[in-house]
């Protein structure tokens, strides 16, 4: 169905190009039956707002700044939609990675927080010697009376994923947390349906329009 092909650029990105192209297509395919519909460019603006920057944070840290940076990460994570127990879990995990960087990674590090798809991702980068004996992969916490060794295990246990890049020039530990699904945007869904059901074929489409419902919306 041609309409689906028209709508896809919206779903794939937020560039102005596809919206403009569809809008001009609407003009060419103007039919009485479509005049009551909002212009597709407006539909695009409703359905797919600007890229979400909530949850983005990028900062260098040393021991003195860890607590304040954890608070900043918590606020950004909340803004990105993380709540309740997962938010608390994430805060502890981020804390553990920062502590590791300060204690074992040369006394300082860099934190990068971002939203990637449905996930909140936090990279903590340090310039320490890395794990000389390979990256540890404990299956459980150390015995109760052990003084240390819980940090990385906690970070891994409390998050949905943890990746460790162990290099001679430093270590990057990346943790992620799946963000809760946002409530459906009814207007956006309706607008998308309007596009997929009725959008006309574009001039310059790679494939010529096929017979079928395509014919119904062309002049």
């Amino acid at each position, binding site marked *: 169905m041609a309409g689906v092909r028209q709508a896809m650029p919206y779903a794939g990105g937020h560039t102005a190009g596809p919206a403009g192209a569809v809008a001009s297509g609407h003009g060419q395919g103007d039919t009485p039956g479509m005049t009551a519909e909002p212009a597709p460019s407006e539909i695009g603006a409703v359905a797919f707002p600007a890229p979400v920057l909530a949850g983005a944070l990028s900062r260098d840290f040393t021991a*003195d700044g860890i607590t304040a940076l954890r608070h900043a990460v918590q606020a950004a994570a909340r803004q990105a939609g993380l709540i309740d*127990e997962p938010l608390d*879990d994430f805060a502890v995990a981020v*804390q553990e990675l920062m502590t590791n960087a*300060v204690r074992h990674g040369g006394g300082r590090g860099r934190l990068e927080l971002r939203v990637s798809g449905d996930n909140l991702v936090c990279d903590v980068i340090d310039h320490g010697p890395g794990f000389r004996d390979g990256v540890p992969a404990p299956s459980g916490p150390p015995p*109760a*009376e052990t*003084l240390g060794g*819980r940090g990385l295990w906690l970070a891994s*246990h409390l998050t949905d994923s943890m990746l460790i890049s162990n290099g001679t020039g430093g270590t990057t530990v990346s943790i992620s947390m799946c963000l809760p699904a946002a409530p459906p945007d009814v207007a956006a869904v309706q607008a998308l349906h309007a596009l997929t059901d009725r959008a006309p074929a574009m001039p310059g489409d790679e494939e010529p329009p096929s017979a079928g419902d395509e014919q119904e919306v062309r002049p």
Partner: protein
Amino acid sequence: MIHHWRHRIDRDGDSCIVTLSGEIDMAAGEVIAQLLAQEINTTASTVRVDLEAVTFIDSCAIGVLVEAYRTARATGRHFIVTAARGHVRKVLGVTGVLTALSPDTSA
């Protein structure tokens, strides 16, 4: 520097209660370790740490509590963590130290 935690010490005969509040992370750990070591050293029987008002702990805080527990036991004293709740209780639980530090299940 802003402190995100506070403490209070109530001594009663041969035992004492150290009540902590706020967020206990690496920044607070060293000071609290010294504080607990001193109380263990000067208390004859039992040191209790009340965590009811603590809202955040990390592995550093756990290390401090475990170290105090070991020091107390090595010198014939009791060291008991009480009233951990919410996420603090969860972190103590998943790391496997809750049973050792809070033998009373109602802690």
